[in-house]
């Protein structure tokens, strides 16, 4: 396995195996964020508007962590993947905003 056979090290950087540490951290973080979200609904005697924002933010943080670490979007060569996902998210969020606007205002 010499370096020039391996396209991932074409820029002179030898390929390094990533350890499982980031993946375990993402898993524990996901569990914690999920527990906070459930606890806010089950035990929290909180303002409805605050809970809705709190839940939305927890979900987005968890989704971003899973995309970045578990789906390797932090790695090199993911520029097009990020472009695709951002474009998809823009269209999805537009539909989402339209539905919320239609119903609530």
């Amino acid at each position, binding site marked *: *396995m010499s370096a020039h*056979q*391996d*396209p*991932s*090290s074409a820029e002179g950087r030898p*390929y390094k*195996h*990533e350890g*499982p540490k980031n*993946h*375990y951290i993402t*898993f524990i973080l*996901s*569990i914690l964020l*999920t527990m906070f*979200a*459930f606890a*806010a*609904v*089950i035990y929290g005697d909180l303002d*409805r508007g605050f*809970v*809705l924002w709190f*839940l*939305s933010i*927890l*979900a987005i943080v*968890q*989704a971003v962590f*899973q*995309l970045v670490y*578990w*789906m390797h979007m932090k790695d090199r*060569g993911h520029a*097009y*993947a990020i472009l*695709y*996902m951002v*474009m*998809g*998210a823009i*269209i*999805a*969020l537009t*539909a*989402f905003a*339209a*539905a*919320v606007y*239609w*119903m609530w205002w």
Partner: protein
Amino acid sequence: MSSAHETAGRLPAEPEKATLEGRNKILGFWLFLAAEVVLFGTLFASFIALRNQVPEGPTANELFNLSMVAISTFILLTSSLTSVLATMALHRHHLNGLLGWMAVTVLLGAAFLILEIYEFYEYAHLGHKFASSAFATSFYTLVGFHGAHVLFGVMWITTLILQTFRKGLTVVTAPKFYVAGLYWHFIDVVWVFIFTIVYLMGKVG
């Protein structure tokens, strides 16, 4: 395609990206996932718009059982971890680790599906059927679509495991496992929004 018959001992460091075909497969799969974002985004939008339209039949607050949702969430989250461990085994060319972690992922996915079928069965008994209300229709469309994705993933990864028993780990089979892993993570990301928007926000009102 002459490099397709390399043995595991001579695989490059990231076998899924070793060929142009493999790299294109991953790029195309991201385009597919972006389309899935749009699909689920519009289903979420229609659910948000219709979730309080319940002229008859049980409402979200009466229906949902959060302890069961928590169990489903934990199962799917754990299966996402096992599929990333499979991808790490793939990078280390550990065929047994790859197949073992993928098999665990499939079993957890099947457990999730059994819970979901039981849940829908129970809801139907409580009068929450597909055509009961706009809420019920948008609920079953969104959550059912996600369940169908889990079912497809379970069947896809099962056939991949069976194929790899025969073909071994090569630069042809490696990209298939890599994109199957991406697909499985994506299913878990969608579930994060389902348990938040459908179940938890359904309880909040």
